[in-house]
């Protein structure tokens, strides 16, 4: 990781996006105190993970990717009581009440006495999430929370993430490869590549930014390759017997110029509209830009701000 500086505001769902090796999990593990940055600090609700470890750890609950997180030989109930105690919940009465509440909410109450190893992958993930929340931490860190889950289980987990943020005011920081999930869940996303932060903006703002730059021209009939050469950098596709040219508008090429060129080429123009980008396109675009510039500059300035209520890293 290098020159990572960001703040997550409380009550937000914040997503880290990036390809394998981008540094998403490492960033999350730094927030968990499992990986110590060589320089800089990580603060959780103002507590320095390195220097105020006990207080900092009380702020988080985490489910890390690719691991079981809980003991498979123990039941869901036993796991919750065990992790509740090591997370510092001293009152047994309070702990049991909390465990019951979580298991009921996650539809696991009826099977609370069964060993977690006998559960489906989705149920195991629910137990891991419940264990992360047993001490009622204000910040929840989830590494690839829906990886390997079937559609139904994935949807349940996603609904729960939204509920955590919206109804309980938790700050949820997650990493994901599933860009559609990030788009629907996250208030704000950070796109990472090779240990660098390429973009860090509210999801809607990031989509708007690209929406302004990309346009689609819908043309009647099939447009030959040489004709579409009048629009360098644009991609052509067929749709319901029409041709759709899509590309970036900016610099010398304005929307007006685009229309003029189409008319000059004798094309039958049906419509011109801003393209509706999705996070996947933005992600690919930013990664390509980063690779072109050797990972030095992703083309978007970093943004830091808001209350220091989530994670703040610099490593």
């Amino acid at each position, binding site marked *: 990781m290098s020159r990572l500086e960001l703040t997550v505001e409380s009550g937000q769902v914040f997503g880290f996006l990036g390809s394998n090796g981008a540094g998403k999990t490492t960033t999350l*593990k730094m927030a968990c105190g499992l990986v110590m940055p060589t320089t800089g600090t990580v603060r959780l609700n103002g507590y320095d993970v390195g220097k105020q470890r006990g207080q900092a750890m009380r702020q988080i609950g985490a489910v890390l990717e690719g691991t079981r997180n809980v003991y498979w030989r123990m039941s869901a109930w036993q796991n919750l009581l065990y992790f509740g105690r090591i997370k510092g919940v*001293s009152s047994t009465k309070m702990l049991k009440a909390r465990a019951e509440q979580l298991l009921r909410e996650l539809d696991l109450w009826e099977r609370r006495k069964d060993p977690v190893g006998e559960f489906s992958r989705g149920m195991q993930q629910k137990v891991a999430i419940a264990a992360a929340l047993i001490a009622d931490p204000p910040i929840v860190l989830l590494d690839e929370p829906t990886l390997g889950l079937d559609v139904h289980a994935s949807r349940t987990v996603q609904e729960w993430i939204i509920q955590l943020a919206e109804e309980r005011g938790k700050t949820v920081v997650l990493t994901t490869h599933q860009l559609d999930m990030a788009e629907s869940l996250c208030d704000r996303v950070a796109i990472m590549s090779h240990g660098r932060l390429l973009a860090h903006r509210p999801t809607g703002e990031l989509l708007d930014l690209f929406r302004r730059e990309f346009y689609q021209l819908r043309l009647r009939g099939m447009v030959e390759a040489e004709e579409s050469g009048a629009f360098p950098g644009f991609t052509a596709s067929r749709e319901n017997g029409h041709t759709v040219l899509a590309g970036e508008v900016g610099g010398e090429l304005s929307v007006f110029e685009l229309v003029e060129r189409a008319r000059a080429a004798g094309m039958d123009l049906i419509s011109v509209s801003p393209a509706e980008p999705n996070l996947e396109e933005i992600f690919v675009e930013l990664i390509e830009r980063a690779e072109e510039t050797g990972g030095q500059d992703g083309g978007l300035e970093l943004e830091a701000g808001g209350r220091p209520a989530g994670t703040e890293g610099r490593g």
Partner: protein
Amino acid sequence: MVLTGTVLLNECQKRLIIMWSYRFNFMLETFMMGFLFVGISFFVSGGRPEPEQMAPALLGYLTWFFAAFAISDMSQGIREETQTGTLEQMYMSPLPSGLLLAGRSVASIFISSGMVILIGGILMLVLGIRIPLRPEGVPVFALTLVGLYGFAFFLGGATLVFKQVNALSNLLSNMLLFLNGSFLTVERMPGWLEAFARSLPSTQGIDVLRRVVLDDLSLASVWQDGSLVWLTVHTAVFLFAGWGVFLWGERVARRRGLLGQY
């Protein structure tokens, strides 16, 4: 104090639950341990084991069992928990990791004590071996155990960084069985091997334990002849060195992100 008690009970409870889920394996292992003792005793005594001669061997063997359990717990246990991710969850606890690990160690001692009482009791009954219960043996045994866990922490720290120390742990565990004086007298070993055997954890403890429990010597006499002093020094070295290596392992694992990798 309440916190320490809670952590200890929590760890004991977890260990018992997990052990119960492996109860069939556990029963087989217990049987195998008993059978191993009978087999080795039979072999070492040239086919004519006498109960009087077997008492020192059994005392050493049972002490070795604690060593094997501690080593397995700290190296294999940590390696498994690294793979499953539960070690990372432990390190995300607001409680000090030292307290949690101490809780784990005490839980491990309780569990292994239960197994030792079971194996030792059965062997004593079946083979007619008599080991007197002398209160003077308690501090000697406690010192031996602390040294053993110091050694186990040493291996635990190495496991955090190098991961594949399982083969080394198994080797050390078996080496201890044959070099700690349980079956083969250390004094009869070649000089270099005797020196090596005496430097291992549990050898000195077993020696002093035998003299106090079986030969009826007082703590004052083993202190005066220097053997208890040497055991104390030995234990202190293993404890501090082991704890130091463990802290080093933790620091390196945190720096390199190895707590959840294998």
